[in-house]
């Protein structure tokens, strides 16, 4: 055909050509119109090597029956479709007719994830040729296949379900087969399933099971047997004491018979159901709980479409009690609703709901209503309320509120539930209140992520026994893991600087060095302790660092004071229960004794070592019993020096005060009080106000002093025995390079002393010679001058210049003010004057305190002190 003839053809038939060209488009429009009337809706239509729909869905009576994403047509003969995702949501349309699929052209359909309520997402492939459908579905290691011939109505199915695909810890597999007819809205068939080696990871039991089911003329029948107890996890086993038999129609159950018994560590649960008679479609049964943590019986009643739990109270693990006063109906139909009034009790806490609604739709449960909490815990009144809905999608409703009230604590918590939904459950609770007069506020965050609950608590308060400061801050990450709760590493409680009385407590920080596990019996983990010390008006406690291991209701701390090189080990544990709850433990202290510890003492420690062990207890008051040992002690009271102190003592701290008693003698190698006292030893008993000394012994002035018992302070005169006092040492006290008098020999006697708190007195003291004594008045300028002044004095000096004494008696009295009255009788001979007998009676009055250098303070000291600059704070 030439070009001209072609143009003539087009001019002649152009109307028909236009119609022919528009025909496919029209057909496409008609198809789209029909699809639209059938409820099909599409979005994101495009063409990329084939038709592509971003989203599509099919509506029926306003409900989305089918929903798909990323549908691609990759071939037309046969029609080949791939789909990324397809869902078959449930619609509330009641029971539906089971219509077979309609006629379709041959097609291949591949769905990567088909979501059907109650099942995990399945990978599905469907082939259809000549109205013969072949379906294969797969989920992890489980698979199923089915063939349906639409022309004959026959169907067959088989497959294997791995138990681990249902739950990771389940073991075994279930093989199933089925066959039947499906035509004209009628589905008939029979199914057999066989379970092999079913069990639970970690439990040795394995069992087989069989299940047979049939559906014919809209009536169904089910028989199931369990060969041996089936492990359920957690130590629980399920035993079928007889085969499960049930039958019914598509409207519900008509007959039912089962006897199941579950046994576990908490006890056992037995469920029995029976049918009352043929054709009545009702029956009764019993749920019985028994064992160490379970108790109770629940009468049951079932009818065609529901199971009723008659009023009962049951005891559950963890001291939980559940009760309901009105029957609770659980629907046995695909859709149902029931009022629910029940109460859950934990110790003195009750959570109840009245006339809430329990609903059921296929596999979806829902609850809606109000929960009210009331009770008492740890001495505090609790009250709370929440109104909302709980279903598989989570919680919706008003924020929950909870109040905690007690004599000293008032706390209000508000918990929004908007974040309580899967997969990531989140909550943020604000708490606000006061403890005593001090504010207590903070935030608790919680979320469900990575398969566990986790969150953080941040709060602040003030400790009540701080007069100023003492702000407490807590920052704690927390999480749950394998049924246990932990506070994360790095959890921290810090106590800011503050005042207790007139003592300034520097900041204290406790930091978790390991996760802290929380349990009903306490806390487990390790904490680092860092205290910056304390400042008192007369002393300073340097920084303390250490570690504290807590184990349930017990703890052990090892603390170190680097500045003093002191080590303290402390254990503590709860004792008693209820009103008798207290704390007790042990204490071990090892520390050198250093001058820096002396700031609050009247003595200055120079050196030494102190070791102490004690048991302590607190229950309404402190008690402590233990032993301390001091070795190598050196100290001074200013002008009095002591060295070589050793001793052990038993100490007791109780409500009436502190008592100590030495264990064996305590000893002091040297005590310098103007003259040197050596090898002082005694036993001591004291309540810090009265001191009892026994078996006192000391070496002084070449002799010794002893006392069987002394008490200080005491108004009584207590005898101290002196013996072998060397008179040469007495003369040497004068510390005179050229003494005018020379004495020799030893004296001894009894010195009744009155030891008052601030004074010393002597009454009726007697000293006498212990063997011969000698007295020589040495020549000196002073003696010569005295002799030349008076002849009688010269005679006396001549007589006394060299005296051999065979009898020396001295009577001594001293008043508390220090004035000593001495009456001395000396009998002897002067060998230089032909053994001239000499008797000398001598009285003397002297203030001993003024004599003793150690007590010579007065104006000079006052002047020196007062002349100090005010800048040094010296008076």
């Amino acid at each position, binding site marked *: 055909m030439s070009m001209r003839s072609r143009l003539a053809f087009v001019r002649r038939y152009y109307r028909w050509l236009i119609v022919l060209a528009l025909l496919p488009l029209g057909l496409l429009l008609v198809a789209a119109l029909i699809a639209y009337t059938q409820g099909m809706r599409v979005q994101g239509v495009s063409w990329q090597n084939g038709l592509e729909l971003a989203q599509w869905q099919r509506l029926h009576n306003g409900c989305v029956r089918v929903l798909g994403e990323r549908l691609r047509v990759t071939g037309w003969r046969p029609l080949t479709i791939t789909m990324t995702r397809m869902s078959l949501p449930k619609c509330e349309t009641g029971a539906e007719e089971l219509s077979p699929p309609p006629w379709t052209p041959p097609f291949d359909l591949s769905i990567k994830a088909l979501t059907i309520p109650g099942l995990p997402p399945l990978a599905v492939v469907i082939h259809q040729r000549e109205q013969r459908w072949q379906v294969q579905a797969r989920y992890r290691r489980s698979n199923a296949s089915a063939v349906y011939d639409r022309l004959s109505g026959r169907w067959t199915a088989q497959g294997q379900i791995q138990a681990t695909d249902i739950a990771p810890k389940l073991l075994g597999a279930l093989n199933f087969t089925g066959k039947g007819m499906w035509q004209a809205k009628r589905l008939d068939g029979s199914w057999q399933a066989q379970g092999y080696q079913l069990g639970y990871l970690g439990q040795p039991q394995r069992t087989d099971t069989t299940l047979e089911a049939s559906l014919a003329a809209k009536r169904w029948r089910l028989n199931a047997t369990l060969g041996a107890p089936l492990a359920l996890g957690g130590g629980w086993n399920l035993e079928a004491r007889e085969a499960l038999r049930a039958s019914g129609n598509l409207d519900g159950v008509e007959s039912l018979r089962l006897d199941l018994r579950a046994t576990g560590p908490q006890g056992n649960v037995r469920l029995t159901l029976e049918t009352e008679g043929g054709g009545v479609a009702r029956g009764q049964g019993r749920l019985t709980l028994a064992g160490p943590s379970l108790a109770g019986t629940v009468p049951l009643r079932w009818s065609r479409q529901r199971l009723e739990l008659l009023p009962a109270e049951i005891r559950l693990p963890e001291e939980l009690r559940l009760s309901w006063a009105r029957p609770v109906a659980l629907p046995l139909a695909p859709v149902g609703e029931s009022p629910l009034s029940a109460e859950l009790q934990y110790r003195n806490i009750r959570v109840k709901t009245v006339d809430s609604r329990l609903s059921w739709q296929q596999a979806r449960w829902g609850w809606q209503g109000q929960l009210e909490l009331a009770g008492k815990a740890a001495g505090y009144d609790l009250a709370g309320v929440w109104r909302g809905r709980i279903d598989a999608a989570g919680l919706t409703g008003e924020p929950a509120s909870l109040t905690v009230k007690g004599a000293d604590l008032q706390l209000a918590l508000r918990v929004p539930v908007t974040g309580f939904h899967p997969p990531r459950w989140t909550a943020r609770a604000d708490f606000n209140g006061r403890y005593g007069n001090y504010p207590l506020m903070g935030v608790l965050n919680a979320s469900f992520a990575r398969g566990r609950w986790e969150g953080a608590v941040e709060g602040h308060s003030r400790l009540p026994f701080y*007069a*100023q*400061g003492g702000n407490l801050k807590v920052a704690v990450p927390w999480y749950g893991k394998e049924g246990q709760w932990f506070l994360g590493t790095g959890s921290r409680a810090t106590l800011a*600087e503050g*005042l207790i*009385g*007139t*003592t*300034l407590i520097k900041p204290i920080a406790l930091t978790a060095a390991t996760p802290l596990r929380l349990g009903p019996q306490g806390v487990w983990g390790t904490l680092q302790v860092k205290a910056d010390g304390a*400042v*008192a*008006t*007369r*002393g*300073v406690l340097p920084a303390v660092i250490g570690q504290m291991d807590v184990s349930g209701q017990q703890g052990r701390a090892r603390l170190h004071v680097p500045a003093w090189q002191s080590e303290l080990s402390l254990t503590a544990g709860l004792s008693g229960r209820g009103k008798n709850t207290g704390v007790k433990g042990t204490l071990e202290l090892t520390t050198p004794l250093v001058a820096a510890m002396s*700031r609050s003492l*009247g*003595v*200055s420690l120079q050196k030494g070592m102190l070791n102490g062990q004690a048991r302590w207890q607190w229950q309404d008051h402190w008690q402590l019993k233990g032993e301390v040992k001091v070795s190598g002690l050196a100290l*001074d*009271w*200013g*002008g*009095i020096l002591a060295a070589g102190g050793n001793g052990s003592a038993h100490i007791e701290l109780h409500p009436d005060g502190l008592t100590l008693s030495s264990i064996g003698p305590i000893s002091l190698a040297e005590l310098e009080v*103007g003259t040197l006292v050596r090898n002082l030893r005694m036993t001591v008993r004291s309540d810090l106000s009265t001191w009892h000394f026994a078996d006192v012994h000391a070496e002084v002035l070449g002799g010794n002093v002893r006392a069987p018992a002394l008490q200080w302070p005491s108004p009584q005169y207590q005898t101290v025995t002196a013996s072998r006092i060397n008179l040469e040492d007495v003369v040497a006290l004068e510390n005179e390079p050229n003494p005018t008098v020379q004495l020799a020999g030893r004296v001894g006697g009894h010195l009744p002393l009155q030891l008052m708190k601030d004074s010393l007195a002597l009454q009726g003291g007697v000293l006498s010679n212990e063997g011969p004594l000698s007295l020589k008045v040495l020549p000196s300028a002073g003696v010569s001058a005295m002799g030349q002044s008076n002849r009688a004095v010269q005679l006396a000096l001549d007589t006394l210049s060299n005296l051999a004494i065979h009898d020396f008696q001295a009577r001594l009295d001293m008043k508390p003010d220090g004035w000593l009255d001495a009456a001395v009788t000396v009998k002897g001979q002067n060998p230089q004057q032909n053994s001239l007998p000499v008797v000398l009676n001598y009285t003397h009055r002297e203030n001993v305190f003024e004599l*003793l*250098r*150690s*007590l*010579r*303070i007065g104006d*000079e*000291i*006052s002047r*020196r*002190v*007062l002349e*100090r*600059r*005010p*800048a*040094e*704070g*010296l*008076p």
Partner: protein
Amino acid sequence: MKAATRLLMAVLLLACSALTMALDLDSAKSQGLVGEQPNGYLGVVKASPDAVELVADINAKRRSAYEAIAKKNGATLDQVAALAGQKAIEKSAPGTYVKAPDGQWIKK
């Protein structure tokens, strides 16, 4: 010349620091935060962190001074401190707090 200047500066700084400390103590006394006690040491009348720190610091210095005097004179630390306390109470300015023998704080 430079050494003399440095010495002069050091003396001036020492004097200034001493003056500051003195003002702090005087101020604390005049505000009724601290007072003298018969035992020779300062006490806290109205507790505050600054008052406690100040008193602790001054008491440490006093104790060192008392100890030196006690050693030199053959007396005990408590004897020297008690004597000094007696004198300090006598010298306290009217209106400042002193501790009575019964343990009560009274305004002089």
